[in-house]
C-alpha cells in the first residue's frame, strides 16, 4: 500500500491482500453513539482488537427507513444522547490515532447534505475513513452528487440487492469502489434465523459480472451463518446481531461475539 494512494485504492488493496491470504473480511457494524457517545471509543477498540477487518460505523439518522427495529432504536438513542455526524467524525479520528482497521461510514444522505458534501468528504478523509456507504443514493440517481463522491479519495461502497436486474448489476459493478455490498435478502436490516436458500447461487452469479470483492450483509446473526456466508463471499457484515449482543452483554459481550464470528469465519475451508 503506497502512502499516496487514495483510500479507495487502500481498501481494495486490503481486500486483495486478504483474498491472497485466504482471509475473509469480518465487517461488524456499530451505530455511532450507541448506547452512549462516551462508550463508542472503547467499543471501537474492542471490536477492532476482537478481529474486525473493516468497521462499519453507522451515522445515526432520525428516519432510518432501510433499518429494522434494532438499528432504529440504536439510532434514536444515540441521537437523544447527542451523537451527530460531526461528533462521529471526531470519534473516528480518535480511533484512527491508535488503530489501522479500515472504517466505512454507513449513512443516510440527509445528514451529509446538511453537513455539506465537499466538507464531509474532506473531513471524513482527514478523520481516517476509508469509504462511505450511502443507503439512499443508488447508482444512477443523481449524476452530480455521485460524481462528487466518486471523485473523492474515499471509496463509495455500492449496494446490490436481490431485486437488482442484471443490466443494473453490470453498471453497479463497473462503478464499484473498494468492495460491493450485497444485501442478502429484500428487507431492512435486522437479525434473522435463516439465510436465503439461494444466497450462494446469487453471489456466484455476481462473480460473473465483477472481480470486485463482495461482502454480504443484512440478517446475518450467528457465527454459523457468518461461516456459511464466508464460504461464498469475500466479507461478512454483522450489524443488528452485534447490537443485540451489546445490549445483552455490554462491551465485553460485544467483543466476545465478534471474536466468535472471527473464529467461525476463519475456520471455513478456503
Amino acid at each position, binding site marked *: 500500500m503506497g502512502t499516496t494512494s487514495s483510500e479507495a485504492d487502500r481498501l481494495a488493496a486490503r481486500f486483495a491482500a486478504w483474498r491472497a491470504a485466504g482471509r475473509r473480511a469480518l465487517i461488524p457494524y456499530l451505530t455511532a453513539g450507541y448506547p452512549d457517545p462516551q462508550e463508542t471509543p472503547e467499543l471501537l477498540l474492542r471490536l477492532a482488537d476482537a478481529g474486525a477487518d473493516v468497521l462499519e460505523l453507522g451515522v445515526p439518522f432520525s428516519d432510518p*427507513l432501510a433499518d429494522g427495529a434494532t438499528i432504529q432504536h440504536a439510532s434514536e438513542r444515540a441521537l437523544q444522547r447527542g451523537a*451527530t455526524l460531526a461528533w462521529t467524525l471526531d470519534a473516528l479520528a480518535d480511533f484512527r490515532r491508535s488503530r489501522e482497521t479500515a472504517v466505512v461510514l454507513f449513512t443516510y444522505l440527509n445528514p451529509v447534505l*446538511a453537513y455539506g458534501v465537499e466538507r464531509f468528504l474532506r473531513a471524513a478523509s482527514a478523520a481516517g475513513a476509508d469509504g462511505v456507504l450511502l443507503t439512499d443514493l443508488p447508482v444512477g440517481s443523481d449524476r452530480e452528487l455521485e460524481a462528487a463522491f466518486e471523485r473523492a479519495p474515499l471509496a463509495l461502497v455500492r449496494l446490490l*440487492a436481490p431485486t437488482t436486474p442484471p443490466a443494473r448489476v453490470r453498471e453497479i459493478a463497473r462503478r464499484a469502489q473498494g468492495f460491493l455490498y450485497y444485501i442478502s435478502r*429484500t428487507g431492512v436490516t435486522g437479525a434473522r434465523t435463516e439465510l436465503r436458500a439461494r444466497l450462494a447461487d446469487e453471489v456466484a452469479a455476481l462473480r460473473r459480472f465483477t472481480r470486485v470483492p463482495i461482502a454480504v450483509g443484512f440478517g446475518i446473526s450467528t457465527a454459523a451463518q457468518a461461516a456459511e456466508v464466508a464460504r461464498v463471499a469475500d466479507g461478512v457484515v454483522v450489524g443488528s446481531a452485534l447490537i443485540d449482543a451489546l445490549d445483552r452483554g455490554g462491551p465485553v459481550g460485544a467483543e466476545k461475539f465478534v471474536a466468535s464470528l472471527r473464529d467461525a469465519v476463519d475456520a471455513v475451508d478456503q
Partner: protein
Amino acid sequence: MTEAVIDWFGRFGGRYVPETLVAALEELDAAYEAARGDAAFWGELNGLLRDYVGRPTPLYLAQRLGDAVGGTRVYLKREDLNHTGAHKINNTLGQVLLARRMGKRRIIAETGAGQHGVATATVCALFGLECVIYMGAEDVRRQALNVYRMELLGAEVRTVAAGTRTLKDATNEAMRDWVTNVESTHYIIGSVVGPSPYPRLVRDFQAVIGRETRAQLHEREGRLPAAVIACVGGGSNALGIFHDFIPEPSVELIGVEAAGEGLDSGRHAASLAAGRPGVLHGSLSYVLQDDAGQIAPAHSVSAGLDYPGVGPEHAHLKETGRATYTSVTDEEALAAFGSLARLEGVIPALESAHAVAHFLRDGRRWSRIGPVVICLSGRGDKDVAQVAERTGPTRLL
C-alpha cells in the same frame, strides 16, 4: 445501461431510495408509461371516477362565504363530495389499476388523517386485494372513526409507535414493508411526495380536479379564476387543482401550509416557509430539519398536514415564484372550520379549513376581480369529535 428516467422539478425530486426499491420504481414507471398511452386504461379509470366516485364533483358558488369578505365571488370545488369524502380516491383508483397491471395482489399505504387509508382500503375492497395501512399511534388516537372505517373495509391497520407517531413515521414503516415485500406488493403513496415517479404520477391522477374546475368555471363565468387556494401538507389536492392553471399566468396559485401554534413557536408543519432543502422519503424537497440534518417533528391540529416534508414540485413552484405559499395557524383553521359550517352548511376537513381560513383572512383583495376557487379537499365528519374535545361543544359556535 440506458440512463434511468428520473423526474426532476427544477432541482427538486429524484429517486433517493435503497437499492432494493430501484427495480420496483422502474417497473412502476414503465407500467405507468404503458398505461398513459392506453385508452382502455383511462376508459376504465374515468368510468369508475364517474360511476363509483361520483365525478365530476360540483363547483359551488359560496355566496355567504363571499359576503363575509366583502362580496368576493368564491367557489368551492367540492372534493368532499367524492365517495369516501376526500380527493384521495382519485389517486388510489389510478394506482390500484396500475397495481393490477403489474400483477401485484398486496397493497400497502401510509395515512395521516386516515382519508388516504380509507380511500386505499376502499379500492382494495373493490378489487379484492389484500390491504395493509400504516398509521401513527397519535393519528390512530385522533382519527378513531377512520381507523374503524378502514377495518370495516377489510384492511389491516398497523399502528406505528416509533418517532413522532404521526404521518412521517407511518411513511417510514410503509417504506420498510415495501423494501421487504417488494416483489408481491405495490405501495400506494398518498401524496405528491416520495421517489420518482410518485410525485408526477399522483399529480396526474389528481389533475382531474383542476381540469374539471376550469371547464366548470368557464361554463359559469366564461373566464379563468383570479386565484386558486388549496391546503398543502404533502400537497396532492393543491397540485391536482393547480396543474391545469400553471400555464395561465393570470391565475394566482396559493398553497396554504399549517402554521400549527405559529411559525415562531417551532410547532408547525410549514416545510416551505420554514424548512430547508433535504432528502426525506426518497426525494429532494423542502424539509423541516435541524442543523445536523435530522428531520424535525412537525405539528398541526390537522393530521393530514402534520408532515415535515412537501412534494418536490411545490418546492419548484415556490422557487420559480409560479405559486405562492402562506400559512394558517391551528386557531385560524379551527375558526374557519366553524365559519364554513355556519355560513354554508358545509363542514370542511381540518386540512381544507386551512384553505378556507386563508380566504377569510385575505379574501377582500379579490372583491373586485374574483372569482376565487378554494379546493375543499375533504369533509370534516372525521374531525368533529377531535374539535369538540379541543374546544368543548359549547364553544364551537
